[in-house]
């Protein structure tokens, strides 16, 4: 009798086990949580990024022949998961680390997401990644620039994009390359950065590297973000007169800077910006000839579409998205979000499972070749800290109202304009 019961329960558990196993083996959908800023100052970045990701979701859930990671297929859904479709849950962190933390937790525990992606703001990514680490859920990041994020020894945090260290390094490498190529000597640099996490990080790295590369920092100032006037700041710049000016500003402050510099007639010999405002396509459109000759580091270059048709294909699709009513070109923020997202989905697909540990292993094994990327990187391969080691920062210069890649010289589409034309010299 006891043996019968024993056998029966064994059989029952076997049946149940196989039932649950087979259930787990073919999930109907893969849920991904996206935590982005959808209100406040940087809302447009968040909105554009989500638009790009939704576009990717549609492509993954259908058939596509775009050569993005894991996207080229003739079946619907993710082949590695039996055709499971992706469902994207989007939340707004409002720029607050504690909101980001709460949302990350809610997404994991209540919405049962398989992975997280976000959050643009380094301060918010700091807390969301802590949550992911705690629960053991893969967290992808495509835009946050603070180097600290991958210095914490986290196992579950992966970043595809370069961070401030890479970018600033690129700036100084460029300066050295440029001096050599043109036989010009640049001795002094001036730093100006806005006072949130983004600017503070950037300023710190720039100061360190400037010293390391032997440049004298004649002025290093932080300014209040969204300030009402930059008269004092530009005044100081004029007084210090650095050869190279390195600003770090979001779009609105960048606009104010240009206008103030124009009024006060401040033109450094060279200006290299830390992304943000300077790569906002609206900024370029609005400022036009006033920023002719400005250089910015950029993780993404739209003009490389001449060499890489994939970029043009993605851009055309992006312009047609219904959440992009103005038909704007894809800019670096959504391009980075898209890249991170596709790397994540590709890993989930390769993992053939929604188990966090399997996905993590797949992420660690990631090796996306350069031709599947919108970015000018050599590929996506994560080092032991979760940072993509295939990154490459490029520098672009505004020439005749459009971005032109000017460095690395082997990728360059145009020559560097130097020195910066004065305001009255611009047509």
């Amino acid at each position, binding site marked *: 009798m006891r043996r019968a019961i024993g056998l029966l329960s064994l059989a029952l558990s076997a049946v149940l086990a196989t039932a649950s196993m087979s259930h787990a083996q073919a999930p109907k959908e893969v849920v991904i949580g996206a935590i982005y800023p959808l*209100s*406040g*100052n*940087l*809302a*447009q970045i968040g*909105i554009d990024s989500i638009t790009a990701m939704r576009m990717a979701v549609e492509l993954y859930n259908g058939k596509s022949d775009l050569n993005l990671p894991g996207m080229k297929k003739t079946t619907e859904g993710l082949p590695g998961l039996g055709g499971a479709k992706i469902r994207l849950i989007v939340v707004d962190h409002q720029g607050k680390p504690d909101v980001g933390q709460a949302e990350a937790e809610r997404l994991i525990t209540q919405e049962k997401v398989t992975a997280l992606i976000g959050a643009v703001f380094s301060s918010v990514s700091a807390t969301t990644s802590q949550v992911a680490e705690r629960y053991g859920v893969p967290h992808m990041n495509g835009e946050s620039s603070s180097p600290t994020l991958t210095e914490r020894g986290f196992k579950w945090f992966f970043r595809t994009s370069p961070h401030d260290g890479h970018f600033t390094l690129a700036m100084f490498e460029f300066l050295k390359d440029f001096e050599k190529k043109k036989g010009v000597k640049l001795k002094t640099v001036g730093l*100006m950065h806005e*006072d949130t996490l983004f600017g503070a990080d950037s300023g710190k790295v720039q100061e360190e590297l400037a010293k390391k590369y032997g440049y004298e920092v004649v002025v290093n*100032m*932080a*300014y*209040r973000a*969204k*300030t*009402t*006037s930059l*008269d*004092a*700041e530009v*005044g*100081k710049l*004029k*007084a210090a007169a650095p050869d190279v000016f390195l600003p770090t500003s979001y*779009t*609105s402050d960048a*606009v*104010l800077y240009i*206008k103030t510099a*124009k*009024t*006060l*007639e401040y033109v450094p010999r060279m200006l290299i910006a830390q992304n943000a405002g300077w790569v906002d396509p*609206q900024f370029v459109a*609005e400022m036009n000839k006033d920023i002719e000759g400005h250089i910015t580091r950029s993780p993404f270059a739209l003009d490389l579409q001449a060499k890489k048709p994939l970029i043009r294909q993605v851009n055309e699709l992006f312009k047609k998205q219904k959440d992009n009513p103005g038909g704007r070109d894809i800019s670096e923020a959504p391009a980075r979000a898209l890249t991170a997202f596709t790397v994540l989905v590709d890993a989930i697909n390769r993992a053939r499972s929604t188990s966090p540990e399997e996905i993590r292993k797949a992420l660690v094994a990631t090796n996306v070749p350069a031709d599947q990327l919108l970015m000018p990187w050599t590929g996506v391969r994560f080092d032991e800290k979760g940072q993509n080691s295939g990154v490459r920062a490029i520098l672009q210069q505004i020439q005749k109202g459009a971005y032109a890649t000017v460095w690395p010289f082997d990728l360059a589409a145009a020559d560097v304009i130097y020195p910066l034309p004065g305001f009255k010299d611009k047509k």
Partner: protein
Amino acid sequence: MTAEVLVQGLVSGLLMGFVYALIAAGLSLIFGLMEIVNFAHGEFLMGAMFATFWAWALLKLDPLVSLPLTVLLLALFGLLVYHGLIRWILGAPMLAQIFATFGLAIFLRAAAQALWGADFRLVKGPLVDGRISLAGIFIGLPQLVASVGALCAFGLLYWFIRKTETGLALQATSQDRQAAMLMGIDTQRMFALGWAIGAACVGAAGALLAMFFYIFPDVGATFALLAYVAVALGGFGNVPATLLAGVIVGIVEVLGGLLIAPALKYAVVFSLYLVVVLWRPQGLLGRF
């Protein structure tokens, strides 16, 4: 730090100060009348700037041309806010009044984003552009016109309050509500008028700012902060004093940035405020 840089800073600060003063004037007027601090003042400014932008984008009207329109629009909006919200909280404790206008601020900011998105806008190619140079000092023409405009607005306001009957009634209500009522002045009408004029001032300031400043839903925040300080520095309820205070704020901002550090320039402004107000608790020229 050469003398030239300092003088340049002074001039820039002075010009900006006039604009701050105009923004603060509306706030001061409203407070003087009914002791309510309008925490949505920054959003009024933002609304005025957006109105100017849309007049330019849709009707091709230059900010200077559409200025009277914006002023009128804001005045009507001020009336709307008074009748729709403020009237109901007149007798409430100060805190509830803060609550109400703060809720309005959140609402307006969100509405702006919902309607027009978070992107920034810029009026391109305004009538007034470029700069002039006086003895080596650069003066941006839009900033110059803005300050002149602000001064004119102040002049108008002053004339209205001191020389017209309605203005005198307004003053009377602000000085002693009970006595004014006894004299037959319709205080409710005065309050509504005060809001309309206060909003109109901000409307003018917004139109002038839109000539050279970028526009987006959060733009009013920092301006509002400086306006509160300017009002308190000059003395709550004393409109001419806000002109002086606004200018002081503008100059201290630039000089603080040049001489101390740009990162701390607002801290300098606020510290100055604290120092003044501790020496004279009612503000430089305040009443009580």
